[in-house]
């Protein structure tokens, strides 16, 4: 295994530093990305309170009870006087809902339960809808107790408040999709990092080993060219797998338990398959491109492919024309596979088939690159 050992010695001195650099940069970006995500998301459920302003012009027993209930169960907002104050509060988004209790409202309501206060709500606001529902629930329930005739005003008030205080306990039982979404975006970005890492590792090491005169010594030795070629290829495969492993470990280190689920497993498989594509691509580059052009080619392929394929910009934002062109980009299929995995809620063969199809396309790309590399090797051999 002389050539195999040689591969690692050369890899260590020609590409290892660059691979580490890419890993470090990728790690930093992903860590920042993950931190940002975690601070903006909550793992539990917390009820939101609407911002409500109550203007009581009645000051009756009922209006006071009603206003008091609303204030206790919302974020009360102080409102100035006049119609302009109401408009300003809504325009400047200071309140979600404004209740104006007119004079005589208590008396009217207790008479037939039909009277309603004047109200204004913030357009297209869920919290305004909640506030309206809260007020309506209070009034309807109060009306029911009064109409039954069995309860005094005080009893009715107590019962309504007790009834409305009942809360439903909420617990999250399904996987938080937004978490896997963040993980998915990170995995998309892996395409760029792994493309750079594998191309630089494999191409630079191969080019050093295949250097004309040193290669002639190998060919003149009693070890067959195919045996040496196989050992070098084995080196390529091991280095690529190490890159893949390092990337997955880094993602695990950052996302931890979020990764240890079925989504993480399928993402890992997709990364592994994409690594094979990169291996094939690098093998081809190592046989076609001169050493001083490897960095440029690597940047063009990794950056261009990532933008075109949707690793940096979500595929949903890409135009149809771009998507049609991107079918020739393996990164497009890698990201598409990630999208398909994310969209699955129950894992079975049927739901997995779109993702598996994308992975199969990637494997075809890998086979295509390997075949092209073999042709390039044969051409070079014939030419020399």
């Amino acid at each position, binding site marked *: 295994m002389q050539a195999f050992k*040689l591969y690692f010695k*050369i890899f260590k001195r020609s590409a290892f530093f660059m691979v580490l650099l890419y890993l470090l940069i990728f790690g930093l970006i992903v860590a920042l990305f993950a931190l940002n995500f975690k601070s903006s998301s909550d793992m539990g459920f917390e009820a939101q309170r609407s911002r409500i302003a109550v203007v009581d012009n009645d000051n009756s027993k009922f209006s006071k009870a009603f206003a008091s209930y609303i204030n206790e169960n919302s974020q009360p907002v102080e409102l100035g006087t006049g119609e302009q104050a109401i408009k300003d509060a809504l325009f400047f988004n200071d309140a979600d809902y404004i209740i104006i209790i007119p004079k005589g409202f208590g008396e009217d309501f207790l008479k037939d339960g039909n009277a309603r206060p004047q109200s204004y709500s913030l357009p297209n606001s869920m919290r305004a809808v909640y506030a309206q529902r809260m007020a309506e629930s209070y009034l309807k329930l109060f009306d029911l107790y009064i109409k039954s005739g069995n309860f005094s005003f005080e009893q009715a008030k107590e019962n309504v408040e007790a009834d409305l205080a009942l809360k439903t306990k909420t617990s999250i039982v399904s996987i938080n999709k937004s978490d896997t979404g963040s993980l998915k975006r990170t995995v998309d970005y892996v395409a760029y990092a792994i493309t750079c890492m594998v191309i630089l590792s494999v191409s630079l090491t191969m080019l050093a080993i295949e250097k004309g005169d040193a290669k002639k*010594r190998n060919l003149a030795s*009693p070890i067959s060219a195919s045996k040496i070629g196989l050992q070098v290829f084995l080196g390529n495969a091991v280095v690529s797998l190490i890159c893949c492993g390092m990337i997955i470990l880094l993602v695990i280190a950052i996302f931890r338990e979020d990764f240890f689920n079925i989504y993480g497993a399928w993402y890992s498989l997709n990364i592994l398959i994409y690594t094979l594509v990169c291996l094939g691509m690098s093998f081809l580059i190592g046989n076609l491109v001169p050493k001083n052009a490897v960095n440029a080619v690597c940047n063009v392929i990794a950056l261009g492919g990532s933008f075109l394929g949707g690793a940096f910009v979500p595929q949903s934002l890409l135009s149809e024309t771009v998507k049609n062109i991107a079918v020739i980009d393996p990164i497009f299929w890698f990201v598409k596979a990630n999208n398909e995995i994310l969209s699955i809620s129950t894992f079975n063969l049927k739901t997995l088939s779109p993702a598996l199809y994308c992975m199969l396309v990637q494997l075809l790309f890998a086979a295509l690159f390997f075949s092209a590399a073999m042709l390039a090797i044969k051409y070079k051999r014939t030419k020399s």
Partner: protein
Amino acid sequence: METVVKIENLVKRYDELVALDHLNLNIASGEIFGLLGPNGSGKTTAISCMLSLLEFNKGKIEIFGKEMTPTAYDIKRQIGVVFQNVAVFDELTVYENIDYFCGLYVYDKKERKKLVDEAIDFVGLGDFIKFRPKKLSGGLLRRLNIACGIAHKPKLIIFDEPTVAVDPQSRNNILEGIKRLNSEGATIIYTSHYMEEVEQICSRIAILDKGRVIAQGTKEELKDMISKGEKISVQVYGISEEQLAKMLKIPGVAGADFADGTISISMNGKSGGIAQIIEFLNENNIGYGRIASELPTLNDVFLELTGKTFRD
């Protein structure tokens, strides 16, 4: 003597260009065999065919009595090669390079270590084992190139122009090293377009031109093939036309001219005419100063056989 390399009617074409044209060579065990020829004469092509690095169109190559093929690994195991360009890995140290190339032939670690250490001693790179090739001077690089080719102690070592772009001191070291390897039992094939080097170390020489062997033999045999002989120059105070004509009658003298106080005498065939010339000068009371003798070179051989010099 046992024949180590036997090449019969070797033909190698690159499209229209005939690089080797029915080349025939026999190299015996223990020889330092020189392949001499100008650039493009087919030396490196011949070496590449011998090592099965190149496919040839016609002919047969036998090494150690067996036909040489790309898969003749038992033959390859006994061959060492020092290429014209330094064939090492820039990423490995001196020691690692020698160890790697030796490891292609010798799998036993202990034995290999011994051989690598011996090769390092042989080329005198002991102080540079941890250096990378880029840190070495041209001469040291050449030594490393040699160490990589000889570390496994091959029976046949091929040197393909190992002294190209090497300073005179390093060149002498390399040539001395080759002689030492030969004295330790290795058969050497040495290609060069420097005739002086070939004359200095080779026991037999083949002169190549346009892929053909135009002459083969020891250096003396080669020089005997041409009409040109020794050239003697004598500084004299004066000589008459009569004396000059008399000089032409000395056996072996082919021609004599006098100009600028110097007689230029061309001898026929082998060397050894200088004593006769001195005797003639003394007998005829011709006062003389410096006497110089210039023997024919392999360049003269090449010139006479091809009508051009090595540098043409």
